[in-house]
């Protein structure tokens, strides 16, 4: 037994010696194969690393397009407004780290100097996070308790001949409330808000005679990996007379964009793998052609096809493993570059990326070796040794 072991070890040693020397003597070809596999593995590593982070990161990016969740009174409640503490409590039910921004809204019609307009009471801090796409001329209102300022939609401002810094009289006929407000900013949203005037929630409540109330709230939630329908059910279950729901149009679009990006990444990975396979195959075919006489000699002195195939596959496997190892490192660095460039943050390392890179890369390398290995089997020793 000990003798068998010694014999096996020395045969293994000889096998490895043949392989290493054979690789060493073909440095250029080996480098091309190694480099091809490394590039393929690096792209797969980078794309798969980004793939697993993209849902969260893209979802955050897509939140720039506005609210995707609505909380308001249910139709069955018969009410048009909800108590603010209820809305605040409902907003707090959003899991930590998921809420990008939220604002309650209260609406009413007021008279301005040149005509009537819809006034919206909002939480300016929340609104700014909720609607980062708004184009504001002048300034956002940053202090929640600023009762002397307002923001005004661009269209309304044009119709009322108002500009930043002007004063505007706001009158609510029903309550007799009258206040002069200074315009801090003009908002261009491309939506109905362009015809509205915005004041803080407390002031709006006073003007409209609806203090401590809101008509609804809009929320911007990072929905990737979150059961957003489950959250809506939880909120509805906890608060009577509340309707909570994701805004389907936005959520669905987000999902589709993510799926398309993921699909494109998979396609890019597939193309890169195909190119890698072809490049490795071409190089290995050239290697086999160069080594026809050597293969013929090995067969002539007693090597069977299995030994020759094992040798070529082992050589490919060794180059492949080295290429994958280098590709993992390069790919992870590439992922960080992509992460910083696209999302402004780093990409986390995930252990699943290892098999996701290793298996397809090695499979591609071995697949690429299939035709060259077949060529080695077909080498006729008498013919190979005769060729000059």
């Amino acid at each position, binding site marked *: 037994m000990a003798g068998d072991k010694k014999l096996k070890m020395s045969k293994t040693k*000889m*096998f490895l010696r043949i392989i290493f020397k054979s690789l060493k*003597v073909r440095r250029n070809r080996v480098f091309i194969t190694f480099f091809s596999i490394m590039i393929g593995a690096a792209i797969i590593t980078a794309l798969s690393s980004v793939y697993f982070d993209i849902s969260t990161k893209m979802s955050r990016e897509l939140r720039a397009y506005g609210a995707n969740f609505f909380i308001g009174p249910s139709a069955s409640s018969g009410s048009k407004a909800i108590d603010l503490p209820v809305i605040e409590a409902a907003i707090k039910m959003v899991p930590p780290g998921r809420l990008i921004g939220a604002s309650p809204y209260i609406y009413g019609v007021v008279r301005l100097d040149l005509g009537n307009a819809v006034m919206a009471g909002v939480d300016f801090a929340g609104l700014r996070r909720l609607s980062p796409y708004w184009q504001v001329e002048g300034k956002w209102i940053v202090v929640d308790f600023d009762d002397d300022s307002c923001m005004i939609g661009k269209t309304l401002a044009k119709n009322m001949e108002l500009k930043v810094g002007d004063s505007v009289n706001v009158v609510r006929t029903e309550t007799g409330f009258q206040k002069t407000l200074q315009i801090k900013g003009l908002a261009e949203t491309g939506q109905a808000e362009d015809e509205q005037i915005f004041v803080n929630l407390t002031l709006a409540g006073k003007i409209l005679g609806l203090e401590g109330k809101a008509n609804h709230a809009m929320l911007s939630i990072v929905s990737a990996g979150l059961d957003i329908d489950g959250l809506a059910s939880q909120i509805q279950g906890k608060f009577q007379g509340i309707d909570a729901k994701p805004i389907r149009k936005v959520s669905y679009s987000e999902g589709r964009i993510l799926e398309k990006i993921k699909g494109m990444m998979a396609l890019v990975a597939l193309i890169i793998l195909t190119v890698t396979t072809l490049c490795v195959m071409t190089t290995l075919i050239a290697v086999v052609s160069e080594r026809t*006489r*050597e293969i013929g000699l090995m067969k002539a*002195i*007693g090597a069977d*096809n299995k030994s020759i195939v094992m040798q070529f596959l082992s050589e490919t496997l060794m180059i492949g493993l080295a290429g994958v190892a280098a590709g993992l490192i390069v790919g992870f660095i590439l992922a960080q570059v992509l992460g910083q460039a696209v999302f402004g943050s780093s990409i986390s390392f995930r252990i699943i990326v290892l098999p996701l890179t290793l298996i397809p890369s090695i499979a591609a390398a071995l697949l690429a070796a299939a035709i060259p290995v077949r060529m080695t089997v077909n080498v006729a020793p008498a013919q190979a040794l005769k060729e000059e």
Partner: protein
Amino acid sequence: MKKIVLETKGLIKRFGSVTSLNNINIQVAEGEWVSIMGPSGSGKTTMLNILSCLDTLTEGQYILDGVDTSRLTEKEQVVVRREKIGLIFQQFHLVPYLTALENVLLAQYYHSIIDKNDAKEALEHVGLGHRINHLPSQLSGGEQQRVCIARALINQPAIILADEPTGNLDEANEEIILNHFKGLHKEGRTIILVTHNPELAEFSDRVIRLHHGRVEEDVRLQG
């Protein structure tokens, strides 16, 4: 009566419509040194390829050390080559990236057991004990051929088949190789040698002359 190591019966080899070997019937006894001679195109190399199981025959029988090789599969032919034949080539055919020692070990590797000492001894036997770690490119033609001889002998084959072993050598090296063949013959090895060189052939026991794929002459030389 010596044991017959190699025998062909009605051996025919065709390449398409061309008959390269036609009805070859020879017997080679154990310890015999046979030279196969003939002009270019007479079928010498084809004959050697078939005798060394590097190629297959079209018709007839080829029995080597009791094994009828004409019915063997490719895999079984490899085993016969590995177990029973030692090959020596005109162009030496050493693996260029392996040292002299490793080239000899390679034959052991495919055969069975790797024994560095045996391989070293084989190289010492051909006068290359001091060159074992040299690559073929660092050896002269004669030295490369001696490595080739050591490799052919390392697994104790039933026969040694040599194709123009001195064809690429200068006179001095030719003599060295010739002396090695004389030594092998003395040791009782069976040798089949394909050669153009009458000086080399004259040391053999027998000369078989081929012409147009047929045995034209099979003469026993006076020792």
